[in-house]
């Protein structure tokens, strides 16, 4: 289940809940008519600097979870010749979203982060954030690729729990990174919203390499 699916699942439960008590819902809705009917985006709000303040504090994560997430994100998308996830403050964005999400979604995230610590303690007797970078890398590598069944015996692989948690954390970090201003630059975006008409294929007929 990817992140979008998770959102969709919570959506459907939410809809059932919303429709379950129509009269109550209608009355609540009447009581909470919004003062402005524009979205923040529609009224031109720019939130791009909100997370960069020096006094930032997490809304949802505790200090250990936050530090673990920073260490993990730095490994997941490191600084290379371009800035990485740590510079993009992905931990702060993920914390912001988590704080507003449904309890089940929050719990799923903490489970994945906790799994990482659990495996770290099992193998190295200490939490993930305190490992050397080399050990962190070794541990993460062991979850990073799916374990397939045997091609020789046709045996199916058991459910790959570690890889599932890896993918969940990776999707969070990738979403946070590539939606940041640093991430947009990483993809090469020049900041302009229009680049002339779409030209399509300009090859001679029959040669479309």
């Amino acid at each position, binding site marked *: 289940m990817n992140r979008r699916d998770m959102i969709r699942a919570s959506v459907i439960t939410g809809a059932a809940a919303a429709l379950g008590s129509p009269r109550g819902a209608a009355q609540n809705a009447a009581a909470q008519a919004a003062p402005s009917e524009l979205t923040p985006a529609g009224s031109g709000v720019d939130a791009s600097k909100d997370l960069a303040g020096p006094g930032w504090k997490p809304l949802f994560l505790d200090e250990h979870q936050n530090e673990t997430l920073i260490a993990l994100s730095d490994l997941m*998308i490191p600084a290379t010749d371009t800035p990485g996830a740590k510079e993009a403050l992905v931990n702060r964005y993920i914390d912001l979203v988590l704080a507003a999400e449904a309890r089940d979604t929050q719990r799923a995230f903490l489970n994945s982060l906790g799994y990482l610590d659990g495996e770290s303690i099992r193998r190295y007797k200490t939490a993930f954030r305190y490992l050397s970078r080399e050990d962190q890398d070794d541990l993460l590598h062991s979850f990073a690729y799916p374990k397939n069944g045997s091609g020789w015996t046709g045996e199916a692989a058991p459910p790959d729990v570690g890889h599932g948690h890896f993918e969940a954390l990776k999707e969070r970090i990738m979403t946070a990174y590539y939606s940041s201003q640093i991430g947009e630059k990483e993809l090469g975006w020049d900041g302009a919203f229009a680049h002339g008409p779409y030209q399509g294929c300009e090859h001679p007929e029959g040669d479309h390499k």
Partner: protein
Amino acid sequence: MSGNFWGQDPLQQTYDAVVVGSGATGGWAAKQLSEAGLKVALLEAGRAVSPKEFTEHMPAYKLKYRDHSPEVVRTRPVQKQCYACMEYNYEWFVNDLENPYSTPPGKPFTWQRLRILGGRSLVWGRQSYRMSDNDLKAASRDGYGDDWPIAYADLSPYYDIVEKYVGITGAAEGNEMLPDGQFLPPMKMSCGEILMRDRVKAKFGRTVTIGRAAILTQNHNGRLQCHYCGPCERGCSTFSYFSSPFTTVKDAMASGNCTLITNAVVAHVNMDAGSNKASGVTYVDRLTRQVKEVRAKSVILCAQALESTRILLNSSTREYPNGLANSSGALGHYLMDHVVGAGASGRLPDFKTLPNANEPARPNGIYVPRFRNTPTSGKHSRFIRGYGYQGGAGPEFNFSAEGYGASLKKGVKEGLYAASLGAFGESLARWDNYIEIDRDLKDAWGIPALHINMSHGDNEAALMEDAGATAAEMLEAAGAKDIRVQAGVEMPGMAIHELGTARMGNDPKKSVLTPFNQTHDVKNLFVMDGASFVSSACQNPTLSMMAITVRACDHLIDRFHKSDV
């Protein structure tokens, strides 16, 4: 309220026509009738919209949640199922907590609605295709259901009018299932799409064409051509895609004959005591909750298929105990929505082009017109009717790249040359798919809500099964690798092409509307939106809905001139 044409209280006069709904069809009705000299009141359940709130050029990092806002999920759990409902624009979509509906256990239906001037024309997919007599007269050809009471020759001149005004980009193909129209220059195809077009034609004889879309490829009727920024559903500062507030509604207001009343949530149609005629509508002011009445010599519902029928079902009288203009009993029945859930995707290794964040974003794809059960293909053994594909091919960033670390960053940027096809299948008109009033459920304005009872049947499932396998076969012919197939049936409503529930026909015992969208029962009451459809075909329906509206308005204007309303 605005645009009052006599400087009087808009509720203290009798209009020639009241039009309920300001979207694709309501905008046309208001334009045609007011420009013909009729005094029109145009009612919209939502607020007015301003180009200042368009956000198509705003990067996601300026949004608090970068387009993953939990607020959208909380207030619009149903609407969020539509890709176009996002942190940028969610206020355009109805608040699901205020606008409930019910479905039977195990039969979900997703109902996507906007309440704002222009309605869904603000966020629609813009794909615009004509129907042919293969669609309108399908029952005569395969024996299922009913023919439309009108033929392609009746609609063709109205397609012309609508296309010339709206501006439809597309390429003429001479395809037997998809009549050509009045096109602006076509958008270009990518290399992968051209390869797919040529190989699919060579191997299967099927047509792959560039999408026909309500987007300007040259300046047209005072609007600027598309600047290829991409996300049309967030608005367009150059009005390059068609949406009613900045075209038809604007024209209606300019005529001096149209009064626009926003925030008017219509509850029911009023009947004139003692005569079998509608006298106007009653609405609830969305903000003040005050109940008000608009009087008119004719009532025209363009509120969206299910909403228009909901208004009629909520307008029962002693003479019409089961819903106004429902002597046939057909009102609410034959609900349709194109079946989706099948297709295929893969990558085209022939192409090495890298993804480029600074490439112009084409807001359009490719289209494969229906090729099953056509006059030349012969009959398919497992299903009737057919499906069309929308799709595309081009380089994309690979956010599914494997692993982590520097190699992940590299993998994302190297991307992949992706190709995909997704099917839209015909939804058969069935009596068993219906809407009715849920007596225990009301919206935030106290108006009884709908109970929607719909499921796709065996024919739709067979269409999707074939569409998945066939899409894979076509991608393979184009040289695709790593092909993934989907062949499921999504819940009804997902195509957002709701049609039927007040179908037209010649027989007043079997249909609600005449071939001119007038109710058989009440001569000055009209339904001019997708509710009138007899069958769904498989083409995106908005273009046909608009053509049907303009045709019906011509008829109504003619009757006004003959003083026959």
